[in-house]
């Protein structure tokens, strides 16, 4: 039989590249192959998306889609290590694709340069096995969640601001809640959007993003136990992590409940910007500069 090589579905070059994961008893060839055959959509190629893209490409995920709508700015580089000075001005999704290709040319990278929009959300999400929310605003977070619920895709969600971080896997496993089950009400529009709240220590999204990459690998392969129905909370000032136990799936949820109002038919027209805390992009960086 063709392919019945002792590499177990991996070619010689792959065996060489992933050797250290293949010898790991809790991982091995079967899980490496699952990564190869999987696809991941990364929403946002910024602070969180940088380590997510780098580590998922490095790990051997077969196909990675990157969504962004912005171009690389110099003020991104203190945390968005996926990009570089000579990529300033390049579209972030394109820049991400260049960097991932340099690291692992065997991973297929697809760029989605128009950002994450309600109209295209469902089709985008349905094209991948797992979705990583590495976005930077509440409206996109709700839209990504709703599309994942409708398309039945697990959502690996991370966030970082200042010196704090949060991580959870939503819409996954037996009774695991979706983002909207836990956070049914968006933050009051404008209340958390002040510029001073928008600062972030550059390495914070690095820490949360690498953890998102780990959760994604666990969701794909099924090894270990992922952070579903739980929220990992990180306080960078004391390097303290805390795991909180969350509610299960809620019958009252507008996205995943039995009487959901956000559905395959309504999501495209749903006004996320009006209903979920502001614009679907974070233009804070320019604004911050003006304050200085």
């Amino acid at each position, binding site marked *: 039989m063709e392919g019945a090589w002792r590499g177990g579905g991996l070619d010689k070059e792959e065996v060489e590249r992933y050797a250290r994961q293949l010898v790991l008893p809790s991982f091995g060839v079967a899980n490496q192959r699952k990564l190869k055959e999987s696809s991941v959509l990364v929403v946002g190629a910024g602070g969180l998306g940088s380590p997510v893209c780098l580590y998922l490409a490095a790990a051997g995920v077969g196909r990675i889609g990157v969504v962004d709508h912005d171009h690389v700015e110099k003020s991104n580089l203190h945390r968005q290590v996926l990009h570089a000075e000579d990529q300033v001005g390049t579209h972030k999704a394109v820049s991400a694709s260049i960097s991932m290709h340099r690291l692992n040319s065997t991973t297929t990278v697809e760029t989605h340069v128009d950002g994450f929009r309600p109209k295209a959300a469902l089709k985008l999400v349905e094209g991948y096995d797992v979705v990583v929310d590495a976005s*930077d605003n509440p409206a996109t*977070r709700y839209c990504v969640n709703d599309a994942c619920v409708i398309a039945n895709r697990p959502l690996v969600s991370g966030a970082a601001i200042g010196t*704090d971080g949060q991580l959870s896997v939503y819409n996954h496993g037996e009774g695991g809640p979706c983002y909207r089950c836990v956070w049914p009400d968006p933050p009051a529009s404008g209340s*958390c959007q002040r510029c001073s*709240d928008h600062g972030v220590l550059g390495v914070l*999204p690095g820490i949360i993003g690498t953890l998102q990459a780990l959760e994604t690998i666990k969701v794909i392969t099924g090894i270990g136990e992922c952070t579903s129905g739980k929220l990992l909370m990180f*306080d960078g000032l004391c390097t303290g992590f805390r795991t*909180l*136990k969350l509610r299960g799936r809620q019958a009252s949820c507008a996205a995943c409940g039995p009487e959901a109002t956000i559905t395959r038919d309504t999501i495209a027209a749903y006004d996320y910007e009006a209903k979920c805390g502001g614009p679907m992009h974070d233009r804070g960086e320019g604004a911050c500069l003006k304050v200085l």
Partner: protein
Amino acid sequence: MVWVYLQFGGGLETLFDSVKSHKVEIPSKKKEGLSDRTTVKGVINYIQKKMLKKNPEMFLKGKELRPGILVLINDIDWELGGKEECIVENNDVVLFLSTLHGG
């Protein structure tokens, strides 16, 4: 009186002088045969009266907690234990958490 740790995260700490953890003593009614206790409702009432100085609308909606704020008692979601009626006893940790959205 019940000694509890009140904690604020996800940006809510900015409403409390940016202090994330407060040890406070909350008045309670002693009942025969029961240890001193209050409820999350009592805790929110205490915060409103004694701690919340500015921008109360970021924490409250009327006399109730503003929707969108997650409450955890000893790191467990209050939805799993009766919401406002959750019992709070000595040394319990009540965490009020907002979702972060930066990336």
